[in-house]
């Protein structure tokens, strides 16, 4: 009997599959094993050292509660890590060709330069304009709230973020598991910490020295220290995701500030159920969407042929996109310090702020004149978000910098990349500014910061291309 080929074996993304496609994870899973070991190890120490004593001296309910919490945490973690986060299947060749034909705009003869076809289209969601971006990898216009995860190389529905700790993207299908994991982990952490501290205090009760207690129960000390240091970030994360769930936002949208009113434009979250409880219920217990990628489906010859045509198409079209990009970063003709060019005002502002945090001791004199050069109002938006930038670089969303002409945006990408990629403080900032965009450097940035929601490769390229053809933006109201 011939071996059955299942669809996960031909899956175009970079995910890892185990158990014949039942388990699906991100390509990098190292940190996930750290998470599992940390949780299992700490809980193991707790059950070995604290539980027998506490069950005897306080109540036998303690090991039971601890055990239940531990099972819940692990089950939620494994579900988050092993399930499909909501990957949107890539377009079939026919569909890709159809979209390609649709967005092709006839070039009018009187424009001197070739305008690449627009790569965004606008729809109205409950009266709120939402921009759908074209995904060059998946060959689709991404549905609202979807984003392309550059680590897994998939578009993910209601993309929240790519979480290396759970070794998977967090998206529409596994957000509820992720939230359950975070919240239950917070409870478990607090519970274990309290128990360990109680145990140590009870050991020192009879005027015994503290060292004696440590000698009697060294595990409790280890457990206490681990829990003490991790509980703060876990509690913070649980609080943050509770806030997101009550407002039906994703981390991605919150970082980008998608629903904050800007430049006098009224903005609201069109996906919200308009009340806190409704949002929570909908996000956490609402209808569970199905997996759309059919990873366990059997590959038919037609399916295989179609997949092969997709990969052929990819090679061909990549070439054309390559030529479309006429945006040249060096074209400004500005010599080494770009302090004179207006369109990089926002970039400079952001970069210099960022650098000041990185290289406090030797803040270079080059930085100052750049910072003063705030020209267009888009720089306002960026600089408002600088405090956040120090955290994780995420708010540098190229999409938000609208009035900039294409070369400026191109440089935004470059500058941000180079400063984050090369953190050597000795280099004068100006030298790094002109480094051209490279995918490998972007990848490096993403790997170091582990935040790729706002800065994924696709959106960067789209921003530079899409902006160049803003005049031709398709206005497509739904219906």
């Amino acid at each position, binding site marked *: 009997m011939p071996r059955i080929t299942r669809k996960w074996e031909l899956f175009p993304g970079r995910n890892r599959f185990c158990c014949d496609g039942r388990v699906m994870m991100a390509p990098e899973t190292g940190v996930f094993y750290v998470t599992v070991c940390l949780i299992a190890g700490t809980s193991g120490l707790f059950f070995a050292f604290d539980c027998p004593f506490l069950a005897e001296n306080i109540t036998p309910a303690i090991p039971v509660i601890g055990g239940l919490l531990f099972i819940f945490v692990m089950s939620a973690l494994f579900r988050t890590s092993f399930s499909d986060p909501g990957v949107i299947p890539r377009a079939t060749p*026919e569909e890709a060709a159809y979209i390609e034909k649709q967005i092709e705009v006839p070039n009018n003869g009187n424009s001197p330069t070739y305008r690449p076809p627009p790569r965004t289209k606008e*729809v109205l969601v409950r009266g709120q304009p939402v921009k759908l971006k074209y995904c060059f990898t998946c060959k689709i216009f991404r549905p609202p709230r979807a984003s392309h995860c550059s680590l897994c190389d998939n578009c993910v529905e209601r993309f929240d973020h790519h979480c290396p700790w759970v070794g998977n993207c967090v998206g529409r299908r596994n957000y509820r598991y992720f939230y*359950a994991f975070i919240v239950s982990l917070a409870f478990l952490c607090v519970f274990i910490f309290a128990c360990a501290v109680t145990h140590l205090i009870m050991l020192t009760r009879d005027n015994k020295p503290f060292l004696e207690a440590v000698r009697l129960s060294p595990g409790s000390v280890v457990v206490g220290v681990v829990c003490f240091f991790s509980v703060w970030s876990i509690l913070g994360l649980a609080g943050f995701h509770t806030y997101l769930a009550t407002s039906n936002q994703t981390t991605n949208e919150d970082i980008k500030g998608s629903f904050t009113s800007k430049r006098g434009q009224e903005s609201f979250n069109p*996906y919200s159920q308009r009340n806190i409880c*409704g949002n929570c219920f*909908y996000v956490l217990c*609402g209808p569970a969407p199905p997996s*759309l990628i*059919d990873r366990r489906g059997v590959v038919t010859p037609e399916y295989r042929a179609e997949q092969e045509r997709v990969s052929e198409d990819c090679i061909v079209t990549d070439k054309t996109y390559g030529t479309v990009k006429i945006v040249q970063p060096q074209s400004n003709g500005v010599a080494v310090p770009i302090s004179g060019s207006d369109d990089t005002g926002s970039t400079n502002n952001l970069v210099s702020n960022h650098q000041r945090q990185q290289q406090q001791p030797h803040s270079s004199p080059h930085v100052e004149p750049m910072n003063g050069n705030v020209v267009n109002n888009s720089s306002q938006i960026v600089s408002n978000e600088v405090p956040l930038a120090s955290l994780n670089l995420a708010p540098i969303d190229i999409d938000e910098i609208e009035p900039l002409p294409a070369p400026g945006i191109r440089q935004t990408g470059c500058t941000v990349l180079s400063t984050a990629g090369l953190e050597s403080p000795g280099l004068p900032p100006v030298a790094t500014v002109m480094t051209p965009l490279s995918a490998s450097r972007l990848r490096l940035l993403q790997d170091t910061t582990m935040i790729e929601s706002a800065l994924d490769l696709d959106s960067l390229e789209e921003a530079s291309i899409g902006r160049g053809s803003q005049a031709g933006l398709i206005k497509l109201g*739904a219906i």
Partner: protein
Amino acid sequence: MPMSNHTPLEDMSAGRGQGGGGPPQNCLKVYIQRDYSEGTMVKFQTRFPSELGDRLDRQSFEYTINQLNNYFAEAERASCSTYCEGCLACLTGYLIYICTETHYEKCLRKIAKFVSEQNDRVYRPRGLLLTDPTTRGLRLIEISVLDRPAS
């Protein structure tokens, strides 16, 4: 665990609602796009595509799309029973999904059945073929015009 996630799709891909081999390639395809005006729930545009003008009457087309929209609305409706299902699953640490099927998956079965029934009754006699939107990632409904080559 994901072990149960695949079942309905797997079944569908076996049947595909078309009885053999899936939609043919190299023929004209008409796509019905999603309608996002009310949010991200699955809903398709009901505008009648002009390419089908000589094959299909507007009523049967609109009936199909509206019916599909109703099925999806039913699947995604935030009703009391779905909430109970979600809460129960959460209380069991999501272990219940190993052995049961979600409401959504049941609805997808109904949709696959509806598509194949519409194909047999309406579309195939007129040289058309409707593809289950689930197999296209719920992005669009694909209608193949079987005897017309792709332009």
